[in-house]
Structure formats: C-alpha cells, structure tokens
C-alpha cells in the first residue's frame, strides 16, 4: 500500500503506517492526519517531534509515562498526563501519534 504526495510515493503497511521511517517528512504527517480528520497544530507537533527524537535514540516509541513526563516538562505539569494526550490524539497517543511521526505501530499487549 502507498500514498502519493507532491510526486513522491510513500509506502505504508495495511493500516497506513509508513513502511520506511526515512521516507517521513512533515507533508506526510499532515497528510496522514488529514486522512483521519485531524488538523495538526503546535501541540500535536510537540508530541510528534518528541516521539521522533526518542525513536532516533532508542529505536522504539517512548512508554506512556516517559512521554507524559517529557510533555509535562515542555508544556507544563497540567499537560503531562494521558488525558491531555488523548484530547490531542483520541485514538490513543501511542498509536495515532506514532503514525503521524512515521514510527512503526507499537506491538504487544498495548
């Protein structure tokens, strides 16, 4: 499966996650979010950028508490919790935000 954008083809898996992390760019993120009726604003980007940085270092998406802690540090304690993240990404921060960040979908009992 794949989608095309500005003449570039992005390979995806069955659920629309990018097959190749290196193909990711901001246009792809905006496009994937739009497909889910989600307009990415600055708050979404804070999360997406953190996910990408963390993935670069650890080759895995951050655990939920690692993520909420980091977002809390950046944006204030009132935002360092899953409730805030679910408001941004109603399908679940781990899965939805990972998709827009170009990361593979987390597997396992999660």
């Amino acid at each position, binding site marked *: 499966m794949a989608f095309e954008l500005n003449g570039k083809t992005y390979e995806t898996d069955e659920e629309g996650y990018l097959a190749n992390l290196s193909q990711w760019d901001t246009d792809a993120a905006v496009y994937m979010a739009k497909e*889910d009726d989600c307009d990415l604003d600055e708050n979404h980007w804070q999360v997406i950028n953190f996910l990408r940085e963390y993935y670069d270092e650890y080759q895995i998406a951050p655990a939920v508490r690692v993520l909420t802690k980091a977002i809390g540090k950046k944006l204030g304690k009132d935002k360092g919790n899953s409730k805030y993240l679910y408001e941004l990404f109603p399908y679940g921060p781990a899965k939805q935000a990972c998709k827009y960040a170009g990361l593979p979908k987390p597997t396992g009992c999660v």
Partner: protein
Amino acid sequence: MAKPEFETPTLKEWVSTPAVQPDAMAHSRPFVAKPEHQASLGFPGELVENWQEVALDKMGELLGRYRSLQVFMDACVKCGACTDKCHYYLGTGDPKNMPVARQDLMRKVYRRYFTTAGKWFPKLVGAVELSEEVINDWYSYYHQCSECRRCSVYCPYGIDTSEITMAGREILATIGVGQKYSNEIIGKVHTIGNNLGLPEPALADTLEGLEEEIEEDISVPVKLPLDQAGADVLLVTPSADFFAEPHVDGLIGYAKVFHQAGISWTLSSYASEAANFGIFIGNYENMQKVAQRIRQAALDLGVKRIVIGECGHAWRVAYSFWNTLIGPFDFLDPAYPVPQHICEFTHDLNQRGGLKFDREANDDKVVTFHDSCNVSRGSRLGDTPGGQFTIPRDLIRAACTHFVDMAPDTIHEHTFCCGGGGGLLTDDLIELRVKGALPRAQALQQVIEQYGVTHMAAICAICKSQFSKVLPEYGMGMDMIISVHQLVGDALVFGSEH
C-alpha cells in the same frame, strides 16, 4: 484510523442468547503474516503450493501428538450445551461462533481423511474435502476464538475448543498463512526479548524515569532494578507493564511490595516479557523458545526464585507447562513455589503479617474483579482449589474497603473473556473485540447500577488494554480498568515492621 463501521451492541439487563445471524462475522479476519514474520518462526513465507497435503500431514501429526485433539474430534455428541456459552457468539449471533460449530470446521475435515466412515460415506457423516473455502473459514473463525475455554466448563465431555483453535492456527501457519499480529510479536521476543521490541537502553531509561516518579510521589526510594545479578527474585512481567496505562501502575505496585518486604529483586532485559504468544498460535517449539529465555535469564542472574507479574496466559504457560517445557528448576530455592505469581507473593507476605495497608487510600473507589480466563480456567493460585479466585479478591479486600462481585455466572470459572485474549488484541479485529466484550460489559453495567462500582481490577495485561479500548464503546470510562497491584501499591503503608 477511521473507525470501522459496525454497531456496538446495546446493553440489556442480562445476557440474552441472540437470534442466529448466519455469516454475520464472515468478513472478520486479521491481517496475514508477512513472509519475514513467518520465516523467523520457522514457517513458510506464503501459501505453499501443495498446501492440502501439508495441512493434512500436519493435522495427522497433531492428532498423534496430542491425544486430547483426537478425543475432542471424536467425542462431541452435539448436545448443544456449549452453543450459548461463547462471548463471541453472544456478541455477534454468528452461528459459526458457537463452540460446536467452530470445532466442526475441523471435525468435518478430520472425518473425511481420518475416519473410515468419512472416507467411504462422506455425505452420511458430514465429512468434507479440505478446500480453499474451508481454509478461509478456518482463518476467519479460528481467529474469532480467544482460547478462553469457557465452553469447556459446560461441555459434558470436557471438549476444549481452544485446543482445536490452536491446532487450526498451527496448521494455517504451517501452510504459510499465519496471523500477522501474533507472529510479528513472537519474532520480536526471539530477537529483542519482548512483545514491544523494547531494547535494553529504552527499558533502563523507562525504569529510571519511573523510580523518579515514585520518589516524587511518595518520598520513598522504591527501586526498579534491571539485570542485577545475585538478586533473590527475578520478576518476569508483561512488557505492557513498562509501556502502557493502566499496566504501569501495577508494576509500580509490585516494586512497592518488594521494597516494603525488603526482598532483593530484579527485572531482566534478556527476558523482559512474561507473555508467550507461542501458546496462542498453538506452536510448541515457539512457545518453548520464548519460555527458554526466562530460564536462561534466571541462570545468568543467579536468582533463587522466579515471580510472574500480572499476565493471564503467561501464568498458564508457567504454571501448567514450564516444568516439562523448560524444567527442571533444581537451581532455584526449593522453599518457594516454582513459578510463583505476584499475587501469591504479595498474599503470602500479607498472611504472614509482613504488609500493612491503609484502605482509606482507596476509599474513593468501589471495586469489582474481572477473573482472567487463563488464570481461572487454565491454572491455579496458591495451594488450595479455587485459590485463583480467592487470592486476588483477598488482596483487593486487604487494600480496599468497598469490593463487590459481579453476577455469579460471569465470575470464577464461569468468567467471560475480555474479548481480546488469545492473540486477538489487534486493531484489525476491533469489531470482534467490541462485540465479544458484550457479556462482560453487561455484568459490569449491572454492578455499576446496583452498587455504584467505579473500578474493575484485573491481573492480565491483555484484559487491561482491551477494556481501556472497548469500555468507552459501552459508555464506560477507559480508566475504570486498573491493576490489582495498583490498589495494593496505593494502600501500602511504608516503614512499618517487616
């Protein structure tokens, strides 16, 4: 991420048997494993050319290897006792989700090739050829069984549909048609050590962050040690405990208990997973390979005991199969059970007066308990019959003032699956998961209305993830579901006598 279109069933006062709706779920099938997921488990990458021959050879092998399968193929008398016992039938009305019909998908092929009557007079005994259509049905409906074994409780012959489902899945994987979700995960355990694919540096970073969080929260230096050679206890827990909510609060609860008990313990980055999806796909060799990592980690770290965290099927594999799978455990301290469940561990400490609880800490909650199928029907806790039902409840009562049970025909050995067990906890099966959760949601709704229940505790990572996803579909909060050890940890009093 658009929501698939289906109707969430409406909750009624009690579970009623639905009218039969043929093929209502014929469209439900999980993604097929990719060649690389198949290869790392020792299965062919795609459908083999001579698939009929390979499938029948495999079926013959399994019938010889597992006497139970042979008995289950022969013993059914079509009494009908199982027909309304499966949560997937109750939630979907698809007659192929009646346990007897699920069994018959294999039984009709078995009769055609493995019984004299079926070889000579197939029509008389309902025997059919192994066709592409049959294989398609198998793929669809053997992935609509969560191997929860509820039907077997009601079968007068004790036929266990889960073993037939396991055999069906193994035959499918052997001809090249495995399930993506389970097989990708097993591959990650083989290479990285856990279902998530969480490498050691990320695990270490995560645990360090949790230690800081606990200390900030309660000002007690509770540790989450990793790869600490010479520790007394190796704790093996589902990797969801590191990663997800509400699981992580259960992990924090275990750590608090170890801290308060003053027992040295460690997690392992090599065996950073309790779950063993090898059982889900019915493949002995993969189940053994996954379990072997735990034995190896215990030997390498030189521990005296192995304790298993809150994970349903991990406990079944450990309790029921470890001894022959990866035993003997003569290198562990014989004074303790091998393996030991974290609930047994905490319960034992509490019985001996080693823990003190302030139940007021949980006074904002009215709690009920969801028995997980693999603990309830596939194993036991403690050393008395029914310990798997009493021990978790005793722990909850020790930590909470307000506890009530759900309806008797939905708990203990009659418990309903959460709807996501047995390798079905994947988004490509969300319709099945929502519909299969109906009986449990109904029982929960009843105690919410009657007793004002606010939380449902569980001791299984799959149950926790499944309920946080599907309860909102039934108008309940995703944070209703919590870990038993979250309740324990929140009420634990530190610094009292050991």
